[in-house]
């Protein structure tokens, strides 16, 4: 499914893949995030082997009729204030989607999938 934007010249359709990538790209630049947790192991494993940058890892976009919900599975760095990091991610993802494709998302749900301890 894709999101369609209609104007007097025709239709612009934006695929879910695009939303996923923008959301993932915004998240990995967020301070406190050290990784994303894979939801599709086969696909993510493949891109890893191919050495491709994979922004869609750990991001699930659900939605119909313009009601878009995003689930993000993240791994945070040990010693950060996790609630604040999660809040920052939501804020940043929302802003990026609004700015780049004019999309207002319904919800952005953050699942803290792990805490990484680095010595």
């Amino acid at each position, binding site marked *: 499914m894709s999101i369609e*934007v*209609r104007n007097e010249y025709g239709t612009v359709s934006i695929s879910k893949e695009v939303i996923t990538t923008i959301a993932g790209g915004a998240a990995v*630049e967020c301070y406190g*995030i050290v990784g994303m947790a894979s939801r599709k192991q086969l696909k993510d494993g493949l891109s890893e082997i191919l050495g491709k940058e994979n922004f869609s890892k750990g991001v699930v976009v659900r939605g119909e009729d313009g009601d878009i919900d995003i689930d993000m599975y993240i791994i945070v760095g040990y010693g950060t204030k996790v609630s604040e990091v999660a809040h920052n991610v939501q804020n940043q993802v929302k802003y990026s989607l609004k700015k780049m494709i004019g999309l207002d998302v319904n919800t952005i749900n953050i699942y803290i999938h792990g805490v990484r301890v680095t010595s």
Partner: protein
Amino acid sequence: MSNRTLNGEQFAQMILLGAHHLSNQANMIDSLNVFPVPDGDTGTNMNLTMTSGAKEVEQLNSKHVGEISNAFAKGLLMGARGNSGVILSQLFRGFSKSVQDKETLELQDLADALQSGVDTAYKAVMKPVEGTVLTVSKDAAKAGVEAVNSVETVIDWFDIVLKEAKASLNRTPDLLPVLKEVGVVDSGGQGLVTVYEGFLASLKGEELPEHASQPSLDELVNAEHHKMHQDFMETEEIEFGYCTEFMVKFEEEKLAKNSFDEQQYREELSEHGDSLLVVADDEVVKVHIHAEYPGEVMSIGQRYGSLINIKIENMREQHSAIVDEKPVNTNAELKKKNHVQKWLL
């Protein structure tokens, strides 16, 4: 105690003054905030974080540097707000890890601790964005480590650290395009420089300059405009249509009749529009405001003197030009005809 040592009392004082200085400058830092989300809260967030850290230090009432730094880091962590706040808390978590067993600090310890803070901070992010508070802290710590053997006192050493932090702050627009576009330095970086300014002033036992690193009016105007373009998605939403900038050169005779009070003047103007910036000295007052009736605003200014350097721009015209540039597949006709794209889902 030699000049190359820092004791607990001094360290606690540094933290308190750093926090105090930051809270004085919080509004100014807010106004620089354009990245990652231009919501103008960096200063507020950093201030809340820093205040929480300073409170822990006050309650602890210890003279052991390790304990103080531990309490400070804990307070920062608990009170961390926003991206910059979380980063600040990480910087000092690393700092405190490095000094936890030390009652006083030698210069070498300080330099190591600063570096340790940076190392820790960089570990908690997957893709560090350069041109932010991270970069400023990294450059400052590097300068600190290099300077350890070439300086005599802690004060001289911190002088070098602060100088590099400021230099690094001024380089942030070269690293982060959005800063250059808007014409400001990074707000989080400015926050860290402010904290360091407080630290140094405390070491020197100096009064703090209230306007230590005030950004220029131009910078503030740029940041205001940037925020505005983000706020309004549609041209029709602009309530105050004219960006108005002018200066009033004070005249003795007029001042005799109407004495000038900056606060009062600001309040009066604020009824006529938003994005208001007023900067006054003895001779002139500079004004920037978005107003619907620029004439009225200038009449108020004329009470105090003569108008110079007047610049008025129609923002609705400008804004529709900007909005038109946004769609990717735009062409010349589309630009003329259709101001705002409706996103129908």
